[in-house]
């Protein structure tokens, strides 16, 4: 039982990384932009967050650095895609390749560095409840912030005027343009905000989740986060639940190894990736279902006056 509680705790932690990144990508996609650069962006942000935390000793400063790095890279992507009308897929791919290369290059001197000792977080009283305490109430504040973020995003997208405008830009940029909204500026803002969230997720990985820096340490989490938006049919709450589920799959491998299941570790390491494929297949099987939920202008460029 004790180990189940720890598995749940680990799953929530792993899911938080995926959820933050995926919520960021959801904002992009709601505005009609697919950012395949999430992986590279998270890598650069992870490095930025790690480096700043090493130099300042403050994880919060690290998070901020990750967000800034993510927002900057996303802005470059956004300008290319939105103003120069480059292909979204190819540009995102370029960002992923560049991010992997750049972070590996710039991060060489940080490979051996260590972070200051981590503070143990626990909510008083609640964390002392047997089983439930270790499972739910001994997390880094980011885990709870992520839940708040999800709620805030639901409120923003469906209960505010700005959210409505954002969605209209993703559904029908022509209509939004005709109503006088600056479609391209709104899209850029969405891309930058999404990039900042991906950056936050990246910084969380390198400073809290696995506090170290190695090349390619994001290990596909950016891509899994991209798959999650489809899985969640572009609903924030489902993104969060899906992320926890994926976190569970990722953590299950360590759990199974721990209890001595006799499967080669490589097959266990495949699980998150295979799970992503399976989930994509299950969700995409019904094209109407996807078409109804998907922002209608996703991936399509928009240039006013053409």
């Amino acid at each position, binding site marked *: 039982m004790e180990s189940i509680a720890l598995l749940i705790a680990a799953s929530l932690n792993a899911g938080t990384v995926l959820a933050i990144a995926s919520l960021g990508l959801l904002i992009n996609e709601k505005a009609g932009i697919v950012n395949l650069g999430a992986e590279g962006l998270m890598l650069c942000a992870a490095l930025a967050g790690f480096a700043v935390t090493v130099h300042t000793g403050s994880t919060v400063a690290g998070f901020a650095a990750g967000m800034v790095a993510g927002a900057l890279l996303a802005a470059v992507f956004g300008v290319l895609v939105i103003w120069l009308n480059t292909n979204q897929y190819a540009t995102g*791919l370029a960002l992923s390749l*560049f991010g992997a290369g750049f972070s590996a290059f710039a991060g060489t001197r940080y490979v051996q560095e260590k972070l200051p000792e981590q503070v143990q977080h626990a909510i008083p009283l609640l964390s002392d409840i047997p089983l439930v305490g270790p499972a739910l109430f001994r997390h880094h504040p980011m885990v709870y912030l992520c839940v708040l973020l999800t709620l805030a995003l639901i409120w923003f997208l469906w209960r505010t005027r700005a959210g409505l405008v954002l969605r209209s830009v993703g559904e029908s940029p022509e209509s939004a343009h005709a109503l006088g909204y600056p479609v391209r500026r709104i899209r850029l803002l969405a891309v930058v905000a999404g990039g900042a969230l991906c950056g936050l997720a990246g910084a969380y990985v390198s400073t809290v989740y696995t506090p170290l820096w190695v090349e390619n340490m994001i290990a596909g989490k950016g891509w899994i986060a991209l798959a999650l938006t489809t899985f969640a049919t572009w609903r924030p709450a489902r993104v969060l639940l899906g992320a926890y589920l994926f976190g569970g799959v990722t953590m299950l491998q360590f759990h199974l190894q721990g209890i001595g299941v006799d499967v080669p570790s490589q097959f266990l390491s495949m699980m998150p990736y295979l799970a992503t494929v399976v989930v994509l297949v299950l969700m995409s099987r019904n094209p109407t279902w996807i078409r109804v939920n998907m922002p209608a202008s996703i991936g399509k460029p928009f240039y006013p006056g053409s």
Partner: protein
Amino acid sequence: MLRLEVRPQPSVRWGYASPLLALAITVVIGVILFAVLGKDPVRGLQVFFWEPVKSGYAWSELMVKATPLLIIALGLAVCFRSNVWNIGAEGQYVLGAVCAAGVALTAGKDTGVWIIPAILLAGVLGGMFWAGITALLRDRFNANEILVSLMLVYVGIQVLNYLVYGPWKDPMGFNFPQTKTFESVAQMPRLMQGSRLNIGLPLALLGVVAAWIFLFRTYSGFAQQVGGLAPAAARYAGFSSRKALWIALLTSGGAAGLAGALEVAGPIGQLTPFVPAGYGFAAIIVAYVGRLHPVGIVFSAILMSMFYIGGELAQSRLGLPKSITGVFQGLLLFALLACDTLIAYRVVWKK
């Protein structure tokens, strides 16, 4: 304010000029980067653009690295022209290498030379199989091929790891995670003494011709491109989009698998965890910089190979991390995409 104005016709001139301008931009950024890092930019440029071509031997090494890039990128050109986004060539390359190694390991001292075509075939089939999974899931279940093919890269690498850490590990190999070195009959025949060039290069050049003929001189290749450029027109003409999907993925998967086979039974000579070297990803850039044209890809593959060799030299001569190659690769693709805007648009000054 500077504005973009749609050209009545896409500019042919910029189609050629854009990769060159992108290269120039990358070089300028590179020079700045070297200067910022306190290295002599002239030395930096020398290492990347002169050392890899300064002698016959250097050229042969350049071609050794360019060969897998060229082969993979040719397959990807067919794929991307069909508007199918296979970005998992790295995984198909790994599976090709694994299957080729499986055949190569069966070779003994008295095996005949038939083993060479068998190894290559195994590589092609392995790559096709891996890409075929993506095709099947896209065709049958409408699953996004970008994400599926990419996820399968991670899975493929784990398959490789399982084999070299487990059943295929060389019992005499001091517990290193690698297979035994292939028998010499199962190694790709070299073209000449004193160089690592092997039959991969002529095969790649044949591939250039084959890809050109397929794309520009066959009905099937034409259908493939119409489907990519104008799906509605292709439907109207009765071209099957499902068939196009399968052709695109199997071609690119087979090509990547072939490259994997040539590499594992060529310069590497055994299966190790270092087989996945990022060629599958770099080949995406090669394909784009080469304008998805077989002849263009020859030049871009050589260019990308210079980046690789330059990166290694930058490490040994200038004390820079080898990963500088990845920085330049990414920059080149970024710059190219930005410059490509000039093909369809004209920059005008408007108040």
